[in-house]
């Protein structure tokens, strides 16, 4: 084991974990104030329920030896996950690091179903999804499964994380149906500064996500780190120009979105392409997502916070461009189309397609199963009142006026039997 690798991976794990509450801020700012806590809790609760599912079974399905499609259960309940080396770091650290990925991936889906899904079925869905969708897909690409044998390049999860979550989000938005106010009322973000704060923290955490995926303090990490910085820089610049040309105004919400799109796109490519290619990739990724966002708003699909446009389109573009721009002289693994290996692009496309199909189908099945037990949707009245009060019994922005403290039930002095008890009608009994 290597102390430098261990030190970097400890820090990287903490960085990736921060991305989930950061996503809560990103999403939370984009919804109406009456749903702010519910939306943020959809990310925060993933830290709990998905973290547990990872320890119980998810890690084993993803990274234990098994067949081409799934790992076996030999690592379930963390059996055999100890201080021995896994690569150049302790096995427990590898387990924790990968756990932060499954948490953020599951939380990403929530952007498609905000402001209308009941909380308990959401939590149940996350638990099942992280085990039956995320874990097998992670096994395919990173755990020695069929896509890794095929030679699919996915440095930090463009396919495993972003295409996977976006396919699930697309299905979830369709199954949950649009919000009752969708396309009838203006639904405005209630706190754009939160969204910018979330985007900033996501970018910070993403250094752990991408550079940490080198699993050591090495050249590959340095390359991934640099690309994670400069691809979103290019996306943000191009996005700014597109906004200027289209509406003569550069909006803050689009700035935050551009950062995320750039980060998503560079995720599969981070350690595989040169920094100049990453800038090119970031710039190219702006266009499809930008127009997908504009187009989606005119459709009847209520993918409320545009998970598909940002993560699905961005992740697909990133995965395909990885197959074009990858350079063996930088990554030591494989070349892309531009460097004489057109097969790589086909493999990338197959990986994206397979993951999107599997994720969409299984997500649909899980949602239908959960819906057979409990309703997924809040009632129209609950939706009107907001999910903060109806699902959580809390409000994000309380005034405090008119709030009366309810004291815990303490046994009071016994009522004297001799006093006459007044009946509701007013007459003494």
């Amino acid at each position: 084991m290597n102390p430098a690798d261990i030190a970097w991976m400890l820090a990287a794990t903490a960085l990736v974990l921060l991305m989930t509450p950061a996503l809560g801020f990103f999403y939370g700012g984009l919804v109406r104030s009456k749903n702010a806590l519910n939306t943020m809790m959809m990310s925060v609760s993933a830290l709990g329920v998905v973290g547990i599912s990872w320890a119980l079974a998810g890690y084993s399905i993803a990274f234990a030896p098994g067949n081409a499609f799934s790992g076996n259960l030999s690592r379930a309940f963390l059996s055999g996950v100890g201080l021995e080396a896994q690569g150049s770091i302790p096995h427990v650290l590898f387990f924790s690091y990968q756990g932060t990925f499954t948490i953020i991936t599951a939380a990403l889906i929530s952007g498609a179903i905000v402001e209308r899904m009941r909380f308990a079925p959401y939590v149940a869905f996350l638990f099942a999804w992280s085990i039956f969708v995320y874990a097998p897909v992670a096994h395919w690409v990173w755990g020695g499964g069929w896509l890794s044998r095929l030679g699919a390049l996915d440095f930090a999860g463009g396919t495993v994380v972003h295409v996977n979550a976006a396919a699930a989000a697309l299905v979830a938005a369709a199954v949950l149906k649009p919000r009752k106010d969708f396309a009838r009322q203006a639904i405005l973000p209630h706190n754009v500064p939160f969204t910018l704060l979330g985007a900033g923290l996501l970018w910070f955490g993403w250094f752990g996500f991408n550079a940490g995926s080198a699993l050591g303090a090495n050249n590959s990490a340095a390359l991934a780190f640099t690309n994670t910085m400069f691809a979103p820089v290019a996306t943000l610049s191009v996005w700014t120009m597109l906004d200027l040309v289209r509406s003569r105004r550069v909006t803050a919400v689009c700035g935050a979105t551009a950062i995320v799109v750039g980060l998503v796109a560079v995720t599969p490519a981070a350690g595989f392409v040169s920094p100049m290619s990453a800038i090119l990739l970031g710039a190219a990724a702006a266009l499809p997502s930008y127009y997908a966002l504009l187009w989606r708003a005119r459709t009847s699909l209520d993918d409320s916070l545009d998970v598909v446009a940002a993560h699905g389109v961005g992740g697909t573009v990133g995965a395909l461009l990885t197959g074009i721009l990858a350079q063996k002289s930088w990554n030591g693994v494989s070349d892309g189309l531009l460097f004489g290996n057109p097969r790589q692009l086909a493999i990338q496309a197959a990986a994206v397609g397979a993951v999107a199909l599997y994720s969409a189908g299984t997500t649909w099945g899980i949602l239908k199963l959960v819906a057979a037990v409990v309703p997924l949707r809040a009632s129209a009245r609950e939706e009107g009142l907001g999910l903060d009060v109806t699902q959580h019994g809390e409000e994000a922005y309380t005034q405090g006026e008119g709030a009366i403290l309810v004291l815990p039930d303490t046994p009071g002095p016994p009522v004297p039997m001799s006093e006459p008890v007044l009946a509701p009608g007013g007459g003494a009994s």
Partner: protein
Amino acid sequence: MRGLTLHRVQGHGGETERVETYRGTTVKMELSEKVRLEIGVSDHFVEPTVRAILSAAQTGAVGDGKIFVLPVEKVYRIRTAEEDQAAVTPVG
């Protein structure tokens, strides 16, 4: 009717209180969020205005609110110094 003023206010109209809990502290929220509209119109617009509010704001549940129709002694439009009827008549 073209002009109105809207206040976000808190009020209690006999509806059931919401119970909320903040880290073990349970409270009953006696006040709910309401909006208060102030609309100045000339006499023959009173009836349509009231009907518009009734049809838009009615849910049928306790706490829907009240409409008060009050006489106004004098109105000035600040921009033009017009008075009374002219002050509340929209300019084409």
